[in-house]
């Protein structure tokens, strides 16, 4: 999607991203301390602090601030979504799953710490995400924190991330995969966690049911957009530019949007998702919505 307007001049997105990523990284570093047994905590920190873009935590913080909450209220939840994202990557990379050696340009967790520790580090991050939300969230009613625990659980479990991975694994090598099927995988593997990040932020920020609902729809479109762009990049970019193995989807004969729709129509679809997402933000204060709009643009126009 090359031609859509990128100009949100009043709002300095690069500065915003840099600041937010920095505060998220600090919060993550403090949340998962190095303690006994050392190796398991090292393994947790190795993947958690490997320097991802922190898109999910940022969505969570931005949604919180959009509805009038302070950043600090959503910080534990935004750390939790990153812990969940990281644990799902650790487990997905295992030899019995996607069997990946590289992640974010570094050896995968099990390559460094062994499979047993990688499984346990993932389990521990999963559990800690809940502990952290339940104990570290301050300045909001316990009723809202309970809703966040429910949302977090929903997005990971057998109707969320796990469902996406299950269907993805069982679809490998199937050449006649339909668009519905592909959409199910992506909605669950990617969109659901982005959606959850935004919803948790909105709930913690004090958003009304109507606001939470609109932001949920926004995030669902953005989540799908994320994956469509990912598929396009896999075809059009090199491994070096991506920091992971390019063309992997093609080699594995995985269904992707470019494969099912062609490259042009995939780009059209990405644009439609972007429009559908932004409509949901119409009724919010546009100045306050600037970070979310910029994050959506970032997801659409990113090159790795």
């Amino acid at each position, binding site marked *: 999607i090359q031609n859509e307007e990128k100009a949100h001049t009043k709002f300095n997105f690069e500065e915003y991203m840099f600041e937010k990523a920095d505060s998220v990284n600090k919060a993550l570093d403090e949340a998962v301390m190095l303690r006994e047994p050392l190796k398991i905590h090292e393994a947790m920190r190795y993947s958690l602090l490997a320097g991802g873009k922190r898109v999910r935590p940022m969505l969570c913080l931005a949604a919180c601030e959009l509805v009038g909450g302070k950043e600090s209220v959503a910080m534990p939840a935004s750390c939790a979504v990153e812990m969940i994202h990281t644990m*799902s990557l650790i487990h997905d990379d*295992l030899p019995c799953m996607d069997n990946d050696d590289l992640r974010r340009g570094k050896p995968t967790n099990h390559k460094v710490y062994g*499979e047993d520790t990688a499984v346990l580090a993932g389990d521990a991050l999963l559990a*800690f995400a809940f502990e952290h939300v339940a104990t570290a969230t301050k300045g909001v009613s*316990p009723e809202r924190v309970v809703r966040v625990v429910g949302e977090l659980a929903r997005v990971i479990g057998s109707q969320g991330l796990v469902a996406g991975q299950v269907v993805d694994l069982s679809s490998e090598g199937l050449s006649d995969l339909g668009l519905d099927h592909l959409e199910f995988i992506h909605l669950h593997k990617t969109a659901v966690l982005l959606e959850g990040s935004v919803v948790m932020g909105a709930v913690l920020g004090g958003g009304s049911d109507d606001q939470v609902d609109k932001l949920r729809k926004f995030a669902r479109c953005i989540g799908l957009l994320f994956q469509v762009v990912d598929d396009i990049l896999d075809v059009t970019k090199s491994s070096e530019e991506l920091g992971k193995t390019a063309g992997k989807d093609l080699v594995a004969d995985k269904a992707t949007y470019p494969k099912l729709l062609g490259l042009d129509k995939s780009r059209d679809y990405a644009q439609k998702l972007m429009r559908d997402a932004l409509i949901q933000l119409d009724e919010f204060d546009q100045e306050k919505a600037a970070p979310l709009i910029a994050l959506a643009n970032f997801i659409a126009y990113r090159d790795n």
Partner: protein
Amino acid sequence: TMSISVSAQEFDLKTYWSTLIKEVNSKLEEAIPVKYPEEIYKAMRYSVLAQGAKRAPPVMCVAACELFDGSRIAAFPTACALEMVHAASLIHDDLPCMDDDPSRRGQPSNHTVFGVDMAILAGDALFPLGFQHIVSHTPPELVTETRLLQVVAEIARTVGSTGMAAGQFLDLEGGPNSISFVEEKKFGEMGGCSAVCGGLLGGASDEEINRLRKYGRAVGILYHVVDGVLEAKMQIVRNDKKKKGKSYVEAYGVEKAMEVAEELRAEAKRELEGFEKYGDKVNPLYSFVDYAVDRGFTMG
């Protein structure tokens, strides 16, 4: 202590326990319906609904809740969650890259039936399902949100990197004093957590929560130590290859293990003395302690 042990004997633990098993089983059955994608639900159900499960954590949780006049209905969702997260831990412990155990409770282990990938995912799905079950099924009029968050944090900490995951890690990697550490983490934590959760749901005070934690830990370890003694006496050969020589009994022998068991029994009962003011309602908790050692009947 004489009067206590008499009244504990009068308490019909077998009926209490088997009634709770039936209730917990039917609630677990409802909590994990088969939906799309079916394979994952089948894998989750296979381990959680396994025949012959003793449901000790749920029973401990309900009994602790009832000690403070808490309603069973308030405790059931958490009781079920304890079974879900416990099953998740066991599924992952059995994996080829961990204990490499092809069977569990006399049945093929989860990965033997569903494959390693599905077993990992079944565990990954059962942890959050436990938390989701607690927040969506506990009646808000019976338990405050603050207490619910304490329960969630308690369970998360118990299965996490300083609890059961730490126990499993040291079980595999070894280390100084690892046997007692592993017993404490893998078996004590779950017992302590079950009792503490019941107390939290029933409205126990902080001091009472502390007692329940020590009590539950002692009972959890006690069960496992006595299990080891019974296995040794029946000369059951354990088939988890990587764990040979790592149980308490295998390391220290039957006699020393029984000494430890008696110390744990005394320790657990000492904590219960703090609940004297609740009268007969503490009897179920006493009866668990004696049952752990005496095994007067077969459960599950």
